[in-house]
């Protein structure tokens, strides 16, 4: 059957009017009226427009078979109407975008009319033919799957329909068009910011490129997570068109951030850990991508198209907000509803988000297949008591270990210190230098000889000087680990040359002397305290916790926040006679 050539444009129903009618119920987008068409006869020849009210189209009357007694139609008056469930689609979507084409003829002809439906650019250039065949008056559903196509342009395109007349009936053809916004939606970076509560706490990598002493405090401005985008390539897609994905897991190296071939820190393409004060509800700042893959290069995302309905970003678990409307290359901030770290712990949190568009009725609808996700690593800490300048900042390696050791069992400083005492004393696999009680990792200097302590923390983390330690080392380990998660801890020195009650040294199996020689005495002893020796923590030894610490039997008591006097009473039989005594009470350990 010859086709009627297209001569002029016919009226077309405004897009949003069609959508209002088609999408009055949000469920319609998931179960659009078109589905009702699917329940009817599958033949395209008999699809009716029962889904649309009578005033939805001009005209909307379903074609009816002509009465045999009526005279045959002498004029063709075709009408074509386009209706879409949504005026936009994500370029990579594999979901069907339903396009409903309503074909009528006011002249009454029921013969098949030539129908062509195309996806075109705004200037009319054909992108893809969606339908090109004759159709009897009725409704045709076309499913368009953007993700099944290659090299689609972004931005405002058009769905155009041309409806001609049967060869046997003369008449003027009809046209209709409606915009279709093809968008490439995605986020390229996420920054975790302070939000509500205590906010972020500094973190530092202590050996960039595995080079000792090459410290790197993680800047707050560095993206927490980001896509890996080689220079000159589209932001959201690889050159082959596949979407770029956020890292599948957080950066696991505790010593160095990711570096490139020259040893420079790679600032994008990975997920770095974030330390938060416990209870913080952080802000996630999303940077919206600007470019997508196109044939031979990049193209904009389409978000700059005129008349595009507003689009917002929605994080799963957080109600959507107009404040999260997106623009190309812009930023959107979403505050998490709950803290990912309610206690001192390490948490790997899955964060998912998608995009929604604003329908004419004021409600938002999900844009299919616009989801992205990332796993963020959070450390829940109490703060930072280590210091404010590198290397005396919380080290990633230490915070990671300490928060995992505490694992949510504490949410205050005293609780944290108590857990860490046990961790150092029982879980680190350390033992006391029973030969001479000499330090391997700690060095004193400063006022009076013991005023300042320097802890070779980097060497300790590698155990490069072994696992045999003394009180100075245990004090350094405990105070540093505690300070780096915000549980204040200072060291104190006890002296001089005093006797000991039987104790259980770190790594020892029985109470007694800490030394192989059997000597029950220290020349000095180092402990830790949060409050200038009012309370004492000691991970070097356990004391006898019963009523008579001088003699057997002995009851193991970890030194967790004992009062200063009780501790010395249990430590030494001569406490109260002048020695032992706290000689230094509130000293800082410097880590390097």
């Amino acid at each position, binding site marked *: 059957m010859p086709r009627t050539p297209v001569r002029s444009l016919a009226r077309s129903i405004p897009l949003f009017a069609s959508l209002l009618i088609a999408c009055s119920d949000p469920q319609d987008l998931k179960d659009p009226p078109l589905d009702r068409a699917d329940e009817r006869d599958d033949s395209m020849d008999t699809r009716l427009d029962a889904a649309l009210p009578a005033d939805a189209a001009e005209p909307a009357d379903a074609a009816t078979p002509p009465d045999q007694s009526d005279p045959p139609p002498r004029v063709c008056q075709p009408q074509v109407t386009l209706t879409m469930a949504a005026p936009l689609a994500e370029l990579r979507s594999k979901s069907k975008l339903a396009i409903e084409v309503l074909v009528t003829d006011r002249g009454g002809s029921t013969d098949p009319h030539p129908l062509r439906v195309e996806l075109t650019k705004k200037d009319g250039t054909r992108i893809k033919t969606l339908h090109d065949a004759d159709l009897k008056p009725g409704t045709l559903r076309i499913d368009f799957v953007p993700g099944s196509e290659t090299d689609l342009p972004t931005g405002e395109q058009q769905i155009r329909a041309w409806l001609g007349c049967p060869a046997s009936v003369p008449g003027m053809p009809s046209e209709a068009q409606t915009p279709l916004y093809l968008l490439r939606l995605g986020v390229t970076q996420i920054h975790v910011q302070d939000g509500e509560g205590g906010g972020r706490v500094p973190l530092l990598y202590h050996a*960039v490129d595995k*080079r*000792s*002493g*090459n*410290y*790197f405090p993680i*800047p707050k401005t560095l993206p927490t997570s980001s896509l890996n985008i080689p220079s000159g390539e589209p932001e959201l897609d690889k050159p082959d068109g596949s979407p770029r994905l956020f890292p599948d897991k957080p950066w696991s190296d505790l010593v160095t951030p990711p570096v490139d071939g*020259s*040893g420079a*820190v790679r600032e994008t393409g990975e997920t770095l850990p974030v330390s938060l004060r416990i209870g913080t509800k952080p802000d996630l700042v999303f940077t919206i991508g600007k470019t997508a893959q196109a044939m031979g290069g990049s193209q904009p995302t389409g978000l700059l198209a005129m008349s595009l309905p507003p689009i917002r970003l929605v994080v799963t678990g957080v109600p959507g907000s107009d404040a999260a409307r997106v623009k190309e290359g812009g930023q959107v901030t979403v505050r998490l509803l709950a803290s990912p770290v309610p206690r001192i712990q390490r948490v790997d949190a899955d964060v998912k988000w998608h995009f929604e568009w604003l329908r004419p009725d004021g409600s938002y609808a999900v844009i299919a297949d616009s989801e992205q996700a990332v796993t963020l690593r959070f450390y829940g800490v109490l703060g930072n008591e280590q210091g404010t300048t*590198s290397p005396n900042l919380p080290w990633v390696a230490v915070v990671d270990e300490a928060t995992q050791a505490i694992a949510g069992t504490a949410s205050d400083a005293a609780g944290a210190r108590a857990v860490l005492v046990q961790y150092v004393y029982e879980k680190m696999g350390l033992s006391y*230098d029973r*030969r*001479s*009680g*000499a330090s*391997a990792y700690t*060095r*004193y*200097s400063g006022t*009076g*000889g*013991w005023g300042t302590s320097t802890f*070779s923390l980097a*060497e300790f983390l*590698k155990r*490069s*000087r*072994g*696992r*045999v330690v*003394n009180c100075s080392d245990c004090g350094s380990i405990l105070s540093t680990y505690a300070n780096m998660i915000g549980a204040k801890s200072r060291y104190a020195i006890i*002296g*001089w*040359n*005093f*006797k000991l009650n039987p104790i259980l040294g770190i790594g020892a199996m029985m109470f007694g002397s800490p*030394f192989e*020689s059997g*000597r*029950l005495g*220290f*020349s*000095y002893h180092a402990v830790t305290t949060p409050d200038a020796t009012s309370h004492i923590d000691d991970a070097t030894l356990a004391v006898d916790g019963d*009523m*008579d610490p*001088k003699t057997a039997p002995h009851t193991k008591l970890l030194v967790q926040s004992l009062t200063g*006097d*009780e501790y010395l*009473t249990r430590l030494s*039989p*001569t406490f*109260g*006679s*002048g*020695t032992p*005594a706290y*000689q*230094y009470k509130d000293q800082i350990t410097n880590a390097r």
Partner: protein
Amino acid sequence: MHAKHVFVKWVGLPMALALSLGVSAAPALAAPYGQDAVSPMTGSLDQEFRAAYPLDAPSSSLRLAGVALDRLRLPGLQLSSRSDDAGDEGGVLLSFSDRSGAVRALVQIAVLPDVLWARRVLGTELRGVALPLSRAFDPLLGDLAYADEGGRGTSLVLATQANIAYRVQIVESGSDVPSAASIAGLVRTAMIAGSPTYPQVTLSLPATIDAKSGAALRIQVAGGLPYTLRAEGAYVARGQSGPLVRPFAAGPITVFATVTSELGCVTVASTSSLAR
């Protein structure tokens, strides 16, 4: 007054515990140094320490250029780790491990410009030992030495020989590990007479550098000795053609280079710049 002082100290303790201990108000007796004894606190901790460890013994007049580090080979052990610091911060610390990888011995060597410095370093190292040590009079150990086990140095020797301070610590003893004193003897025999010569190092950075892109560091080390770099206010990348200093942000930057000679003389040189 002393009894009152004792009474005040017991406030806050569980009363039963205090009574069970039968706390005595009698003053402790002074006892000879090195024995199980309690000495009353006669002064500050530092004074007690200095009294226990006098550092004013006569020194050897033969100045030393350093210790031939490549000669320090401990039988049955291998060098597993090393950290270098300026002499007055401890110098070179060598870790020696057995075949299973367990660290068995530590040897620390600090080559200082003169005897006084060496004695100060010795004093610093002694402050980290909880077991009272005895003066060791074996000249093989040094012109001033303290050691465990009555000065025999089975597990620990801390000593000076002229302008060199050193420490030998047995971390895990065993029949397969020499005594600290034996290892100290190896250290002594590796000492080279002469004046210490510290490596010549020249560092330079532009007076101001770009805070985003950083700048190349120029470093010249006489003799081509290896060096390690660290920075304040920046980190150091390898760079295409040499070290590249990458600032964290705008502000002052200092870069340090640590270079150690074959005789254990450590130079820590620095240069500063301003990142904008």
